[in-house]
């Protein structure tokens, strides 16, 4: 039924929202900006067979094939496949103000690897 299929789709590997609020973690005294940011994270199943849009590697496909025969083999995992940077303005250990670009802070895409 459509409801069932809907729920199944939700479970497969995809990007989920995750807002990191620096005041939540008590870092807002030294991070001047941003106050927080949308980091996202990846979660979900990597079903067999792996669909193209799950951006799977050959390794993941072989692993999933072997997994379908021998359940001891770990399944393909849902991980970030593309990440982007954010810049942060903060006060360092010496009370100096620093503006720095940090890599791989935001998940842009998820896939099965």
């Amino acid at each position: 039924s459509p409801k069932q299929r809907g729920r199944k789709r939700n479970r497969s590997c995809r990007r989920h929202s995750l807002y990191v609020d620096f005041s939540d973690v008590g870092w807002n005294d030294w991070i001047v900006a941003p106050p927080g940011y949308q980091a996202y994270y990846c979660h979900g199943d990597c079903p067999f067979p792996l669909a193209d849009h799950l951006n799977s590697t050959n390794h993941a496909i072989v692993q999933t094939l072997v997994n379908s025969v021998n359940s001891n083999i770990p399944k393909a995992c849902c991980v970030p496949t593309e990440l982007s940077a954010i810049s942060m303005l903060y006060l360092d250990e010496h009370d100096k103000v620093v503006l720095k670009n940090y890599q791989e802070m935001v998940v842009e895409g998820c896939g099965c690897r």
Partner: protein
Amino acid sequence: ENNHASLIPEEGKKKVLGLQGRSATQSHELLRDFEATLLHMFGLKRRPRPSRSTAVPQYLLDLYRLQSGEAEEAGGQDIAFEYPERAASRANTVRGFHHEEHMEMIYAPDDGELTPLRFLFNLSSIPEDELLSSAELRLYRHQVNEDNVTLSADHGLHRINVYEVLKPPRQGQLITQLLDTRLVRHNASRWESFDVSPAVSALDSRSLHQEPGEDWEQLRPLLVTFGHDGKGHPLTRRSKR
């Protein structure tokens, strides 16, 4: 260090403890290690503990807003300078330094010229692996009131020369190299930016401000360095998605 706040405030900690069923000390250590790893990833040796009096220069806040696209989103009209694309295209780190106030000095040269001012900036906090590609010195110049200007022969123009002190000054002897020079108008209060990339020089502007009122923290000379530590992309401007 043992009294520092952990990554998660108290109530969060209780929830985590409950979830993981670990002993309190084990979880506390786990969180502290986690925080240390993250701080290390940010290139920080320990968790910063800024003093309340630390002022964040408006210029660096505006640089962040321009670079992250926030200013563009908010219309960006209130920012009075151009984003330094060229300097930022070779840097992933921009640092701001105020001069060492206790080292300020007015240096009276013996040839009776105008009194040079000396600033000293302490850049020792820049990590070794960060190569500086450029630096600018920003000086705030108050407007000179009109009657003085009418008296002087320079028709409302001032020249500002920025020198690097090559050797620590000894009595009557000062070895300098000229870094940047500019003719400026008396009648406007504004920030002047000088390219001091070849080196850094220190000027004392306290004599410009007879009374260092509240806005001194926002108007004092600011040295801004642009560097790259080899990790990741430069701070080119990002358009908001």
